[in-house]
């Protein structure tokens, strides 16, 4: 067998197309021929390098695939709408802008105990809050196969109307007249204006199979103006309470319902926060630092703005 033949065998060996017989021939030749061994090593290094190069190229390609659909559920992309409906993914975006001047929130028992409000003053003296991205908290998935789950966003007084949801698109801000319970935390005054937006519900339904609508989950959002920059939140009895300086600075709640559970994010002053849901404790808002997730959320918000 000539040298060229052995080179051909090396090629076959590296591409995994060599026959068992030829493999044995090649191996015995390699054992005795130093220069062929060197040739084999060179070729093999190049081939491994090429494989690695291509793999990295493909990974980079995948990294650049916009994932608003995969990560955050499915919204308005007809090719995947059907999938979304079958796996029971629904997304609601809620944008809200709140101003407070007169009333305070429902005092949850924890509020009293943890006293988050009065602590704002003390927090002012505290050093910068170190936000930390916690491992994503998986909320218990509900058995919603082939069912669409909706979350409705209502003001305190608005009734929950499951049957309305598929038709109701965007409740106009004026229609909502929130009435809050008698304040017990006197120093906070509220004057609430709601801007509620629900995006993509119709899209999600458009091509779906007949859907049984589960009882929607009510989320009520209230916020309190605090004197400090510290931002905290709490879920209590399916309501979200925000504590912090949200006064006059618009923020948005991004609420994502999927079969994997509910994920809630908050956008405020160019920062995204992840809210662990449900958490009954008053918690400091966690900044989202995962870059992939951040870009998803940005795309998500932009899409919402376009809609």
């Amino acid at each position, binding site marked *: 067998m000539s040298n060229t033949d052995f080179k051909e065998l090396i090629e076959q060996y590296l591409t995994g197309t060599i026959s068992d017989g030829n493999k044995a021939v090649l191996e015995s030749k390699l054992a005795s021929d130093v220069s062929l061994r060197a040739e084999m090593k060179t070729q093999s*290094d*190049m081939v491994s390098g*090429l494989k690695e190069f*291509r793999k990295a190229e493909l990974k980079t*390609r*995948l990294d650049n695939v916009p*994932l608003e*659909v995969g990560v955050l559920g499915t919204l308005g992309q007809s090719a995947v709408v059907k999938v979304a409906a079958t796996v029971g993914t629904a997304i609601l975006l809620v944008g809200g802008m709140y101003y407070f001047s007169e009333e305070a929130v429902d005092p949850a028992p924890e509020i009293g105990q943890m006293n988050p409000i009065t602590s704002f003053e003390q927090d002012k003296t505290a050093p910068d809050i170190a936000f930390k991205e916690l491992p*994503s908290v998986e909320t218990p998935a509900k058995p919603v196969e082939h069912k669409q789950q909706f979350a409705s966003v209502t003001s305190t007084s608005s009734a929950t109307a499951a049957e309305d949801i598929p038709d109701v698109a965007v409740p106009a801000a004026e229609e909502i007249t929130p009435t809050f319970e008698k304040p017990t935390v006197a120093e906070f005054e509220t004057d609430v204006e709601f801007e509620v937006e629900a995006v993509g519900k119709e899209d999600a339904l458009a091509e779906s199979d007949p859907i049984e609508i589960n009882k929607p989950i009510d989320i009520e959002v209230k916020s309190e103006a605090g004197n400090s920059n510290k931002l905290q939140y709490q879920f209590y009895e399916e309501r979200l309470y925000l504590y912090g300086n949200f006064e006059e600075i618009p923020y948005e709640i991004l609420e994502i319902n999927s079969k994997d559970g509910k994920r809630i994010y908050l956008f405020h002053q160019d920062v995204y926060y992840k809210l662990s849901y449900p958490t009954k404790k008053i918690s400091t808002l966690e900044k989202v630092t*995962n870059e992939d997730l951040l870009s998803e959320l940005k795309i998500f918000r932009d899409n919402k703005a376009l809609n």
Partner: protein
Amino acid sequence: MKDDEILAKISKGDETALDYLYKKYYRMMTKIVLSNNGTEEEAKDVFQEALIVFWQKAVSGNLVMTSKISTFLYSICLNQWRKELDRKSRLSNEEKDGEEFQEHDAEEKARIIQECIGDLGDICKKLLTYYYFDGMSMNDIAEKLQFANTDTAKTKKYKCMKRLDLLIRSRYKEEDFLD
């Protein structure tokens, strides 16, 4: 897109099919890792690896699908993550020792090779990676890269390998000298 449409696209080396699958199954597949003590980053990595394995098999024509693509991907992800967990637990049990210099040397060489591949012309890069990684036939490569025929592809492949070899040799020696 149906599975057979996806496979048809992949067999032509159409990478948009890969994007489609990535988008479509990201949530489903990463869930496997996320719900088994993995981070978002690890989950993404496992899914990407799995998808690339699938791509490699499908594009080279070495795949006989007996199940849905999603089932196939799911099982690769599951296996990959099991292996990774295994590797992790072994790593934590083993003391790392020795061989660091050798490793460093090999890494250095690998880095140089990557650089050299990056410096190849676009056609060479595509031709060689399609051939060695994707496992495409010379015929398919000739078609995809619009060569006159298979023989042209073979000749070009030979020249590209030669060029890469020279690049690596010159640069590896250079680095040796600098060390």
